[in-house]
Structure formats: structure tokens, C-alpha cells
């Protein structure tokens, strides 16, 4: 509205100005024409006219008739005598100055006057126009200009209203559709009938909805898979407990109850792996710190050594360099621990599992080697899938390698399988930290280790093994 008002105002003033100038120019020209005309007459005629009648000057005639004789002319001589004038001109000078335009009040009316001196003849010509007529004409013209604009506003407003409404309708439809959605519904939004300007926005929104939908599906699938995975350990526990109840001999009872205990440990381990995986899913690459892969590898080896020894397996570490990387020590511990546990589980009794940490130009490499047969080529792609179990795995959770892969992703590290002449090697390749050599040796909190690997886990890795009495 205000913009429209400003437009109207400026149009009005502009029009006024234009017309005023028009009139002034006309006046000016009239003066010159008058002068030339009059002065072109023979002297006699001019003087005669001077003594002629002086009709009443009645500037209060209605503007219409005024318009017809709206020009008055006075010609003054060098002595200041009115020497020639038009019929309706007053007898007093029209204006005070003798050169140019001015506004005068003459007998109660406003006049616009123009004077110029004709030096050659020593005469001053004054012409004048009453404002009444001028104003009338001005307003008339201006108003005519304004009518369309004024009338146009409501019409324009209505039209704009409709057009915008029409344009916004698809958006409103989209908004309604989205508001009606419950959180479960992540279908994409219909992209037909949407104005081109908004299409990129809706396209991006649909992309986001799809990604969200996939993420939620993955979550649901994971939860369902996890629940199913837990059913088997629970089934084992229940049956063993019933066996314990039904056993006549004390030895039968004891055996069954021991199996229940080791089953609980296994189930707990599975739950811990699930939690780890779930936390890793949410982890973001912030909060990394300097970590020494060699130190972590030493810790892993120490923790595993006791259980490995019960299978008559030695765990060695070879650390040539400190292997500084930027990452999460806990997560790196979990990753290496999973890999070493696998190695111990599948290595033949009496063999050696080794961890080799070395640093090359810009990579830190951890090689975990066991003397078993390793993962068959056909399975190497699938082993990283959650809950995937190879042909031999029955004590594992099926999650170890998924966790390893996720942690590797978080650290921009690669995991590779290599067949060696006397065994199987898993390589984890980190990019070396570019920080200065001054770093803290970040070793893992022992509480973390205890929580993730309860004492009993190592027992389960060995079928038929009796747990140690003292730990």
C-alpha cells in the first residue's frame, strides 16, 4: 500500500511539474510573440491602443472562460508607463521584477507572470496567467492520469492475491501433506504440480526423507537381527537349566550349571558387542586424540595371553615403532582385540599368534597373524556383514568383524586379508598422525577392558574346556 501511495504521490508531483513547465514555457512564448507582434505594429496603432477602453479586470470569472482569455499582456515603456495592455489586464504592473517568472497576488488571486525587457525598444513586456485556470487544468490532467492508478489498486490487489494464492497452493498442499504424516511415514513427497522455484527444495527434502527412511530401516533390521541372535544363547541357557533340575546325580547338575554360567558369559559378550556396534554407529569423527597403536597392541596381547595359553597358543608382539595415529584409543583397542580373539580362536593348538606394528612413510600397519587356515576367499567379502558366521564360527557373536570394519572406517583405516605361507594375516593400515612427535601414550582404561571382555569369555572359545578355579 505504502509503495503504491508513494508512486501516486510522485506521479502527481511529477505531472504537476511537467504541466507547470508547460504553462511557463507557453507563457514565455506568448510574451515573446506578443512583443514581436505588438512591436511589429506601426507606432501609431500602439499608442492608440493605449488610450483605448479599459475594461474591467475581473479575475473572478469562472475558470472556464478564464481559460479562453487567460493570457494578459502589459507593455511598459522605459518611463514606467503602461503603454499597451490586453483587454483584461490590470493597470498595475503584473510583477515586480522585470526579468523572468514570478508569482503574484493580484486582487486576491494568484497569478503567474513572466517579464522580459526588450532593450532595443526600451520596453518591458509582462504577461500573466491566473493560477485558477492553471490549477484547474493541472488537476484535471493529473487526476485523469491518476484515475487508472487509483482504480487499479483494488483490481491489482485482487489479481495479485489470486495469482499468489494459486502459486502457493501447491506449497500449501505439500505443507498439509507433511503435517498429516506421522513419524512412521517417510514416503517421498509428490513432485507434480509444484512451481519450478520450489522444486529443488522439495527434491532435497525427498532425498533427506529417503536417507532417513533407509537409516531407520537399517536400525530396525539390526534390532530384529540382534533379538533373534540372542534367542539361541537364551534357548541354550534354559535347556541347560532344565537339565540341571532334572539331573539325578550331583555331577550331572554341576556340569549343567557350569554350562549355564558359560552360556551367560557368551550372551553377555554378545550384548556388549551389540552395544559397541550401536555406539559406533552414532560416533562422529570428533574428539580424536593422539594414540599409540603399539602401546594398544601390547595391551591387547597382555589381556589375551592368559586365555590363549589355555589353548596352548602364544601371543607375541613385535613393535618396531610407536605407531602414532589420531584416533580413539578405546575403539582401536576393541578393534585389535576382536582381531586377536579371532586369531586365537582359529589358530591350531600349540601355535603362535603375532601382532606386528610397523610404521612406513605415512602409514601405520598392524599385522595380526595366526597359523590357521584363515577365511576362505569366497567368504572374504561377506565376513564383515553383521551376524554373518563362517562355516566354523559357532562361539562367536558374528559381530566382531562388523565392529572392526566400523572402527576402521572411523579412523580412515583399511583392513586387508593376506594369505601367508604358514598362516593367515589380517592387516590394519592407518594413516600416520601428522602431529608432532610429542604425544601422550594413550593406553586403554582397564575398566573398559573388563566390561567388554568379562573373564569368562576366553573359556567359551574352547569347547569342553573347564574354567580355571582361580582367576
Amino acid at each position, binding site marked *: 500500500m505504502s509503495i503504491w501511495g508513494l508512486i501516486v504521490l510522485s506521479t502527481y508531483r511529477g505531472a504537476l511539474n511537467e504541466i507547470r513547465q508547460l504553462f511557463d514555457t507557453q507563457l514565455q512564448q506568448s510574451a515573446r510573440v506578443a512583443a514581436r507582434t505588438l512591436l511589429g505594429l506601426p507606432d501609431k496603432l500602439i499608442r492608440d491602443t493605449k488610450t483605448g477602453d479599459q475594461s474591467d479586470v475581473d479575475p473572478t470569472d469562472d475558470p472556464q472562460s478564464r481559460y479562453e482569455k487567460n493570457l494578459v499582456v502589459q507593455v511598459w515603456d522605459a518611463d514606467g508607463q503602461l503603454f499597451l495592455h490586453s483587454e483584461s489586464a490590470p493597470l498595475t504592473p503584473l510583477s515586480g521584477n522585470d526579468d523572468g517568472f514570478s508569482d503574484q497576488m493580484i486582487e486576491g488571486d494568484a497569478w503567474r507572470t513572466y517579464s522580459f525587457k526588450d532593450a532595443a525598444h526600451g520596453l518591458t513586456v509582462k504577461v500573466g496567467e491566473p493560477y485558477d485556470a492553471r490549477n484547474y487544468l493541472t488537476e484535471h490532467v493529473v487526476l485523469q492520469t491518476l484515475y487508472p492508478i487509483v482504480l487499479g489498486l483494488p483490481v491489482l490487489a485482487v489479481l495479485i492475491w489470486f495469482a499468489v494464492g494459486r502459486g502457493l497452493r501447491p506449497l500449501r498442499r505439500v505443507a498439509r501433506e507433511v503435517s498429516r504424516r506421522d513419524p512412521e511415514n517417510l514416503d517421498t513427497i509428490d513432485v507434480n504440480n509444484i512451481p519450478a522455484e520450489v522444486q529443488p527444495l522439495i527434491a532435497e527434502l525427498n532425498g533427506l526423507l529417503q536417507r532417513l527412511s533407509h537409516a531407520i530401516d537399517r536400525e530396525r533390521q539390526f534390532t530384529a537381527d540382534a533379538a*533373534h*541372535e540372542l*534367542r*539361541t*544363547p*537364551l*534357548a*541354550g*541357557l*534354559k*535347556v*541347560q537349566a*532344565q*537339565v540341571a533340575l*532334572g*539331573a539325578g546325580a550331583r555331577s*550331572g547338575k554341576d556340569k*549343567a550349571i557350569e*554350562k549355564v554360567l*558359560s*552360556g551367560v558369559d*557368551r550372551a553377555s559378550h554378545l550384548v556388549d558387542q551389540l552395544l559397541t556396534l550401536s555406539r559406533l554407529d552414532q560416533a562422529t569423527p570428533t574428539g580424536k586424540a593422539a594414540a599409540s597403536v603399539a602401546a594398544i597392541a601390547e595391551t591387547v596381547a597382555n589381556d589375551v595371553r592368559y586365555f590363549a595359553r589355555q589353548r596352548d597358543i602364544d601371543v607375541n608382539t613385535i613393535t618396531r615403532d610407536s605407531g602414532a595415529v589420531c584416533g580413539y584409543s578405546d575403539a582401536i583397542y576393541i578393534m585389535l582385540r576382536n582381531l586377536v580373539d579371532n586369531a586365537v580362536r582359529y589358530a591350531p593348538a600349540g601355535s603362535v599368534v603375532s601382532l606386528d606394528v610397523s610404521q612406513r612413510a605415512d602409514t601405520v600397519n598392524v599385522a595380526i597373524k595366526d597359523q590357521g587356515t584363515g577365511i576362505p576367499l569366497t567368504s572374504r567379502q561377506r565376513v564383515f556383514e553383521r551376524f554373518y*558366521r*563362517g*562355516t566354523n*564360527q*559357532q*562361539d562367536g557373536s558374528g559381530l566382531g568383524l562388523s565392529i572392526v570394519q566400523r572402527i576402521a572406517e572411523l579412523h580412515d583405516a583399511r583392513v586387508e586379508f593376506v594369505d601367508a605361507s604358514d598362516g593367515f594375516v589380517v592387516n590394519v593400515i592407518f594413516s600416520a598422525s601428522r602431529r608432532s612427535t610429542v604425544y601422550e601414550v594413550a593406553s586403554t582404561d582397564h575398566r573398559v577392558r573388563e566390561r567388554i571382555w568379562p573373564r569368562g569369555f576366553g573359556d567359551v572359545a574352547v*569347547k569342553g574346556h573347564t574354567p580355571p578355579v582361580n582367576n
Partner: protein
Amino acid sequence: MRVLIVEDDALLGDGLREGLQQHGFTADWIEDGDGALHALLCERFDLAIIDIGLPRRSGISVLNAVRNAGRETPILMLTARDAVDDKINCLDAGADDYLVKPVDIDELAARLRALARRHAGQRNATLRHADLELDPAAHRVTVDGMSVELSRREFSILHALLHAVGTVLSRDHLEQSLYGWNEEIESNAVQVHVHNLRRKLGDNLIETVRGVGYVIRKQSEDIAK
């Protein structure tokens, strides 16, 4: 009753075997599908419990192979998945029953007995013959209402003979139904047990068919319904 348990989880498989043994079954446990198929086709099992989720060869695949080979052995499937579609697939593939883990061993035993009964065309759990009654669930034998003490092996043989009433069972068959893989068969064991049964229950019950085996003849008014 000899039952084969096919389950890859050590804790569960071991527990099922022990539990079913406690319930009077002769139970054997195997961990993979290929071995299970071989055992079911080559040896005599009265029942089988197969876990669907086996490595290498799936439980359903074993089931299909057994049925395709024409074996009617009653089979109960075990699984961790409880979706209706999975159940339908199993039953349509030829399974006789379906249980979702975790299972109750008592329920499992009862269902196995029901499967065996159905397989023999019996409705009533208790096997009757003249004034002899055998209750498989309670492991009790009564004659004229009076309880008779039988050893586990004796009970098994009597059960097998009553269950297959009218059919001659060879000594081999009876041996197989008594002994699992982990047990040694004593020579003449079946003979000894039959002798004991005759002593406890009367000479007329179990008939020897020379060169073939043993049988309990049908009694017209005592055919189990």
C-alpha cells in the same frame, strides 16, 4: 524312542541331548546339516529335531532332502525366527511341528511323543494291551492297575514293541532304538531285556519270531485307537 538333534549351537545342542535323555529318549546330537542328512537316511531314527539356522546346509534343505528320499520320519523344526511366513514355509516343506527358541524341554518332549503317536496312528497317549498299560510320559507300566518296575532299557523295548504292535521288530531295530552313538551295545542285550520283560509281564506278551525278531501281537479288543 530314538531322536536325532541337529543343532549348531553347542550349549543348546548339548542341553537338548541331556534333557531328552532325562525324559527317556535315546538322543543323539549332530551339528551340521550334511552329517544329519546322512544319519537320517542311513540309520533308524524315530524322530528328528532340526534347527533351521545351520551353517552350510540349512535346516529346511535337510528337511526337503529327507522328504524327497521318501522318509516319513516325524521332524520338528527349531528356529529363532517367529515370523508367520517362516512357520508356513517349514510346515509346507514337510515339517510336522515347529518350535520357536527358547524351548521348554518338557514341552519339547511332549510334542515329540505326540508326533510319534500320530505317526503310528495312535490318538491316546497311553498304550494299552490287555490289562497292560504303558504311560510314556510318566514312564510307568501297570498290569491290572498294579505298577511294574522296569529298567530304562526294558521300558524302551516294551514301548517300541507296543508302539509297533502287530509288527515284528528285528533285534537290530531294537538295538538301534536303544543305543545312541556314544554308547556301547552289550552283546545279547536285547535278548536279556526281553527275557526280563517276560519274567515280569508274563510269557505270552512278547512273541519270538525265529530269524526275524520280536513282536507283540494285536489283541482285537485292545487295538489302541
